[in-house]
């Protein structure tokens, strides 16, 4: 066991730091075009698609190097790359299960954010029970006709393509009749309606498909292999490295400490209140444990190990921590924490949702993490069954299957 960075890692970190110092935009990126331009710059510097193989347009870098880039970007509050779902999860799924044609057609444009991707999995009546999804894709030989509704689709309004789960065999048991297709979002049969979240913003949307068309060449894997393929995507999504996220938490913590020194309650600065100190200590201890755990996962990835079902532990850990963090932060800040417009520097933080905001916004956002990408309850089922080997529960749908 040795957590000392290698000289190569240190040199790489310095190189990234210098590059970011010279290139991070001085102004907030407002339009999609500005964000795409910044993304393109990051890609050309080798900081997007780092883990992808070189022959597919990636950089063949190590998980350690990727973590260094995420960490350094968080430190200087650099605007994130876009197309995260595509590059992090959908692209890797195409790399594992896609045809050569699909790889040639889609991957490079995904990396450069020339085409933005979204994920069409959840439905109004298929949330945790994703396999009960109802959207249908009828096989017409050279293409499929898609009808149905998806929900909680991030980047829906800006997406050019979506990875879709749809039922192709209604008679088969529910896990066995689903296929995975790539769907062109820019067609008349696809309608995207933004959904407003409890934060007031609209990062999700509903997607309605009415006789939409998906070409047969855009079928990923075999017909009715979709459930298995979806597990790959979700595995990538849950197992991704959390170190950049922890760095953002730590930066927010420093702002919280600053606020606790400047704001007063009960006739003294917050920081002098032992109850506040106990809460700050609790947040920081947990935050550090998230960092250590992130290093442990990174070290396993770097050895070429795949975390598999254990990635559910990581996801459960940081999303539940995030809720406790912002709950404690708002207890500390009292009414100050409820402000939705920031007047002081310490009142606005990176909410790790992709949009900056106040502590109130971050607090609200923290309710999302334990729901998306498989709720905490689903993660605990996975951990119980696949990591601890506990017996499967008797479920009505399994009895039928």
């Amino acid at each position, binding site marked *: *066991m040795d957590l*000392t960075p290698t000289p190569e890692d240190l040199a790489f970190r310095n190189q990234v730091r210098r590059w970011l110092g010279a290139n991070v935009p001085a102004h907030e990126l407002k339009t999609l075009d500005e964000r795409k331009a910044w993304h393109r710059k990051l890609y050309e510097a080798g900081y997007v698609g780092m883990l992808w193989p070189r022959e597919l347009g990636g950089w063949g870098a190590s998980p350690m190097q990727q973590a260094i880039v995420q960490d350094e970007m968080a430190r200087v509050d650099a605007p994130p790359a876009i197309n995260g779902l595509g590059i992090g999860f959908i692209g890797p799924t195409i790399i594992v299960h896609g045809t050569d044609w699909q790889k040639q057609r889609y991957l490079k444009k995904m990396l450069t954010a020339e085409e933005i991707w979204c994920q069409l999995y959840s439905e109004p009546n298929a949330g945790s029970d994703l396999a009960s999804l109802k959207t249908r894709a009828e096989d017409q030989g050279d293409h499929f006709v898609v009808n149905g509704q998806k929900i909680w689709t991030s980047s829906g309004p800006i997406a050019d393509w979506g990875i879709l789960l749809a039922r192709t065999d209604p008679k088969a048991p529910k896990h066995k009749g689903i296929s995975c297709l790539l769907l062109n979002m820019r067609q008349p049969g696809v309608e995207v309606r933004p959904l407003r979240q409890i934060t007031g913003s609209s990062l999700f949307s509903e997607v309605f498909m009415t006789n939409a068309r998906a070409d047969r060449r855009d079928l990923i894997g075999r017909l009715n292999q979709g459930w298995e393929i979806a597990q790959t995507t979700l595995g990538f999504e849950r197992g991704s490295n959390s170190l950049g996220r922890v760095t953002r938490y730590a930066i927010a913590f420093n702002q919280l400490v600053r606020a606790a020194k400047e704001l007063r309650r009960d006739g003294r600065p917050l920081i002098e209140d032992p109850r506040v100190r106990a809460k700050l*200590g609790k947040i*920081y201890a947990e935050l550090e*444990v998230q960092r250590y755990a992130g290093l442990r996962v*990174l070290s396993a990835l770097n050895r070429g190990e795949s975390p598999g079902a254990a990635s559910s532990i990581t996801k459960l850990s940081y999303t539940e921590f995030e809720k406790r963090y912002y709950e404690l932060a708002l207890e500390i800040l009292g009414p100050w924490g409820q402000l939705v417009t920031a007047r002081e520097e310490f009142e606005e933080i990176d909410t790790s949702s992709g949009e900056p905001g106040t502590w109130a916004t971050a607090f609200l956002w923290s309710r999302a993490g334990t729901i998306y990408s498989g709720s905490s309850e689903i993660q605990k089922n996975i951990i119980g*069954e696949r990591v*601890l080997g506990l*017996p499967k529960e008797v479920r009505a749908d399994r009895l039928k299957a």
Partner: protein
Amino acid sequence: MNFAFSSDQQLLKNSARAFLDEHMTPATVRLLWDDPRGESETLWKEMGELGWLGLSLPEAHGGSGLGMVETAILLEEMGRAAVPGPYLPTVLAARAIEESGTDGQRKRWLSAIATGDARATLAFLDADLDWRPEATQARAEKRATGWTLSGTKRFVPWAHVADVLLVPARTPDGLTLFLVDPGAAGLTLEPAQVMDGATRLVTVTLEGTPVAGDAVLGAPGQAGPLLASLLRRGAVGAAAEMLGAARRCLDMAVGYAKVREQFGQPIGSFQAIRHKCAEMLLEVENSHSAVYYAAWALDAKAEDAELAPSVAKAYVGDAARRVCGEAIQVHGGIGFTWEYDLHLYFKRAKALEAMYGDADHHRELIVRRVAA
């Protein structure tokens, strides 16, 4: 960067597990609970022969020159077996003697500790139970030859079997550490029975206890930093033991949930039980990360080496208590019986929670560092 154990470290862990599975069964632990000394002298000698007692001592003194990571590996296994005995206090005292002792002091104690011929402990807490070295109340007065010590040290682990006590006391020069013979005049030992039968805590009363001039460990008045450093090691060591106890309880709970049937099914198939087990695993794995990160940080003298032990003690103290408690809950009534072994580990974790600073104490240390 590698968080995994090296093959040597894994070997140490495996051999410790195998040895303790054979020699420290729950039945043996129960016998020692009822033993007046509370520890096994045979086991202690064997631990010396295995190299465990000198693990982190220099080779010149019969040690192996290994670090806190290896010590934590052993302590985790000892926590897993709820081994009774003064391993952690002895290792801490040995570290202090090695770091600050004179040649004479090192010769006198280190080899004897490494072979299992001597035990030692740190008599740290005064009557008002403050883990800050600067709050020490015991006093030492200079005499024509040597010193006399006065004060009351509370909850001193294993003082009744120790061959030497490390006693911090105030002197006109400042905080000073003394090596004290537990048989010295004016020194009384009063062992107390505690909830965990594998833990022995002793009240040490010093009433004008004479100690020789060469009994000062390190420079007079300079003991503060040494004590703070020992407490950090103690915190990581205790966290490692708690981790072992928690992992044992988790394993027992999961094993039980697979075979115990109610309503015609194994209880582990119910989400109420399965989710509890998943939460326990999460806390055990995070505790592993916290313990070994902190141990590595101490060995590597990392920039957060003074912070990480507090993080580990604060986190693992809470986590181990919850995990061991939930293991009882998963078992139901059987887990609450004296005959079932869960309480050996539950009580061990609870006893360690208060040692070397509890979670509240370490959270305050963290805030002093990060919000100064």
